[in-house]
């Protein structure tokens, strides 16, 4: 019998081949089984399934996004540490701890995981948590689609991690340029894992992009014109617009490479294909993608800085226009990623200038944040610390970006460590620091208590110092001629700098450990840090006008907005009324409550995600029956869900009122103690 019909390309020989890979695989399996065992031990499967996995509440979906992203961060950071150890030790006759091809798998996995599953994951998590609250809505436009997006994200994450255990991962870098990524040069399943993992999670992101675009445009509460919308929501609008326009290009690029590899087509191979077309396509998505990630971080700082400076955001309108300018410009700069392709001086000049021009709207934002602080009464809580770190480092990263934007300089620096240092400066100090600030800032709104300050600060200082040590040397090494993706080098004078970078990475790991301890300590001491008012930071926007943790329906009575900092104005105008002072309009029991319709939980998103996972897995291993079965199953689930008419439930006005009364009473008792 022909077993390949049943198992495709799967066989025993594919299990990990060396110690480090075995270690990775074992850790993965242990963590996975450990989690499952822990849940089973606490008999938590039922509640987990009912309250979380099938939930359509964006707040819960948001939390799940962030949990998955943090787990993926552990994986991505482990890869980073391995690379740092390798480069610190692999000089001259020494060859470090991993083989060359394993090193290539590691940087490919690190880059892909960090971008697609860490940064995108935390971003969609925060958007889910906060956008509906900020625009005064009870839900997103398409709650089921939201859950589906999340499960596609999880399916992608599983596929990329499976490569640790079965077969190997791509060695072609985080963007898999052909011809290296083509079947002739990457004959194993590595690139297919990469392709399907990104394809599936990318489609999830695209659906989310559509969802939040519509949510922001269509579901804002009464009175909130676009120019009265909080800045975070504005940047998310820009970011989701970029997702909607750029992710289809990613879908196409990945699909074409898949067709080349699976069906012998010639998009990027000799035989009439054109490999530079891939590079153009992937960066036509890739450049907008970096702004997809960083715009929401800008938005977070635009919320954090005014609140902790006690002043309104300086230059709101210019902030909005700079978002729009960035969105527009980010589509006409992609070629700066391959000036060396040889497009010619005039083309390079155009793209170089356009790239430098992006510094202008970004600079506008920088200045506005600093103006907001000017003459403000600044409170240095952790979110503000992340911001301070960001301002300094991001400016540095921006300046080195402008250096890279000059084609002449780029010919020297291209594919060197200077570049690696540059983009990590943008993505760690811009994106990650921003998200960390956002997580700390909005944590009480979701969980009802604040994160521990002391450990937050420790985390910040470790991250900051670690970052400078880990990436500062790379700028220098770049000038010394070190190229990226080196598993070994011969010049011993580079080694000290690589060792410093390794120490930096270790300090970053300490920083992350502090964040985990912070979480643990905060949960333990939560009773001392309860947020009973719903407004722990003296906030300005609608999300602070409701109790913490936000009830399932968000707003008992949908708000009406008259100004930009609506809640701030409300507090200013009702200084006497203590209930409004702390908890806004919504806990005003004199108001008439009404029945609230909310979406019912459903397992459909989970089911379709599972089908998609098996689809991707089958495709990777050419197990065609599995592919066909999962297509049929997925389609059937989708049709069943779409034609299901019983998807909502009603919370009665009486229940809402009772709940709100309880929250109000709790607040008043706390006031009196």
């Amino acid at each position, binding site marked *: 019998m022909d077993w390949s019909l049943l198992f495709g390309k799967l066989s025993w020989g594919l299990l990990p081949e060396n110690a480090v890979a075995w270690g990775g695989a074992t850790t993965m399996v242990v963590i996975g089984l450990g989690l499952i065992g822990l849940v089973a031990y606490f008999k938590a499967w039922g509640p987990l399934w009912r309250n979380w996995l099938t939930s359509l509440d964006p707040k819960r979906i948001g939390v799940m996004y962030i949990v998955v992203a943090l787990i993926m961060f552990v994986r991505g950071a482990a890869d980073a540490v391995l690379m740092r150890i390798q480069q610190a030790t692999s000089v001259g006759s020494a060859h470090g701890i991993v083989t060359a091809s394993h090193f290539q798998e590691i940087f490919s996995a690190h880059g892909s995981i960090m971008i697609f599953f860490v940064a995108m994951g935390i971003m969609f998590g925060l958007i889910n948590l906060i956008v509906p609250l900020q625009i005064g809505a009870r839900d997103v436009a*398409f709650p089921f689609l939201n859950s589906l997006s999340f499960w596609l994200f999880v399916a992608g994450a599983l596929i990329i991690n499976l490569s640790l255990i079965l077969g190997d991962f791509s060695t072609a870098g985080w963007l898999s340029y052909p011809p290296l990524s083509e079947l002739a040069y990457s004959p194993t399943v590595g690139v297919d894992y990469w392709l399907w993992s990104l394809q599936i999670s990318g489609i999830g992101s695209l659906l989310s992009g559509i969802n939040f*675009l519509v949510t922001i445009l269509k579901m804002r509460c009464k009175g909130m014109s676009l120019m009265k919308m909080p800045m975070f929501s504005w940047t998310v609008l820009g970011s989701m617009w970029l997702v909607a326009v750029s992710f*289809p290009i990613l879908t196409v690029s990945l699909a*074409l490479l898949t067709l080349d590899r699976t*069906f012998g087509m010639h998009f990027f191979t000799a035989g*009439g294909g054109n490999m530079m077309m891939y590079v153009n*396509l992937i960066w036509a998505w890739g450049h907008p993608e970096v702004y997809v990630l960083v715009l929401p971080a800008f938005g977070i700082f635009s919320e954090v800085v005014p609140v902790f400076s006690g002043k309104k955001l300086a230059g709101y309108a210019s902030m909005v226009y700079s978002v729009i300018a960035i969105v527009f410009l980010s589509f006409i700069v992609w070629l700066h990623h391959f000036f060396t392709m040889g497009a010619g001086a005039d083309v390079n000049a155009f793209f170089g200038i356009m790239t430098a021009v992006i510094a202008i709207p970004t600079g506008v934002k920088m200045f506005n944040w600093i103006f907001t602080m000017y003459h403000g009464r600044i409170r240095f809580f952790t979110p503000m610390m992340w911001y301070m770190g960001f301002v300094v480092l991001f400016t540095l990263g921006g300046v080195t970006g402008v250096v890279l934007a000059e084609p002449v300089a780029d010919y020297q620096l291209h594919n060197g460590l200077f570049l690696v240092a540059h983009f990590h400066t943008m993505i760690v100090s811009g994106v990650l620091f921003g998200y960390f600030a956002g997580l700390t800032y909005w944590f009480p709104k979701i969980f009802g208590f604040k994160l521990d300050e002391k450990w937050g600060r420790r985390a910040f200082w470790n991250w900051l110092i670690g970052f400078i040590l880990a990436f500062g040397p790379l700028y220098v090494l770049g000038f010394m001629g070190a190229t990226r993706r080196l598993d070994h080098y011969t010049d011993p004078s580079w080694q000290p700098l690589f060792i410093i970078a390794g120490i930096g990475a270790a300090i970053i790991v300490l920083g992350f450990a502090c964040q985990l301890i912070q979480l643990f300590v905060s949960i333990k001491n939560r009773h001392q840090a309860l947020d009973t008012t719903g407004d722990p930071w003296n906030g300005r926007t609608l999300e602070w006008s409701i109790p913490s943790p936000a009830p399932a329906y968000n707003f008992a009575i949908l708000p009406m907005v008259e100004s930009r900092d609506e809640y701030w104005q409300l507090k200013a105008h009702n200084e006497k009324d203590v209930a409004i002072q702390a908890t806004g309009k919504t806990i005003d029991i004199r108001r008439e409550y009404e029945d609230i319709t909310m979406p019912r939980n459903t397992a459909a998103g989970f089911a379709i995600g599972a089908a998609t996972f098996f689809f991707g897995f089958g495709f990777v291993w050419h197990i065609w029956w599995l592919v066909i079965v999962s297509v049929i199953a997925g389609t059937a689930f989708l049709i069943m869900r779409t034609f299901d008419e019983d998807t909502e439930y009603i919370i009665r006005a009486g229940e809402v009122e009772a709940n709100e009364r309880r929250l109000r009473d709790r607040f008043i008792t706390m006031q009196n103690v």
Partner: protein
Amino acid sequence: MNKDTTTIFGFWVYLMTDFVLFASLFSVFAVLRSGTFGGPSGVDIFSLPFVFIETCLLLTSSFTAGLSLIAARYGKKIHVVLSLIVTALLGLAFVAMEVSEFAKLALEGNDWTRSGFLSSYFALVGTHGLHIVLGLIWMIALIVAILRKGLTRSNTRKLVLLSLFWHFLDLIWIFIFTIVYLFGVI
């Protein structure tokens, strides 16, 4: 109240993303058009009369899809179902013609592995065909749903979306007809 408008607006946004997807495929086709690698180019393999019939089928099906929407406005369930069935049959005929065209090319040795040009041709036209197939599955599901539950609010909304989708695919086909086939033979 505004669930319908939100959904329809959302669907427009989705169509926009699909439009970007096709735009990327069109540009890939434009780049690879000359990549025939010694194999045939458009003139050698396209038959305009054949494609013209395909086009007529699809345009007519768009028309009947429009009819179903009008019938829905007047609440005429039977007419809706009938015109949807006609639409589906026309769509099916279109798919059959496309498959036979693909099969003929493949049998002549001009399949998707022959050259970059043919890869991009199959990918672009095939993606459109795949959309049509998805539309057909949706149409059949909707016909069943309308037969079972009548022209409920949600079924009517789905009908509106489906016809938007169908017209959109028509529009894409016009582009394919012009850029791939017409420009291909001149």
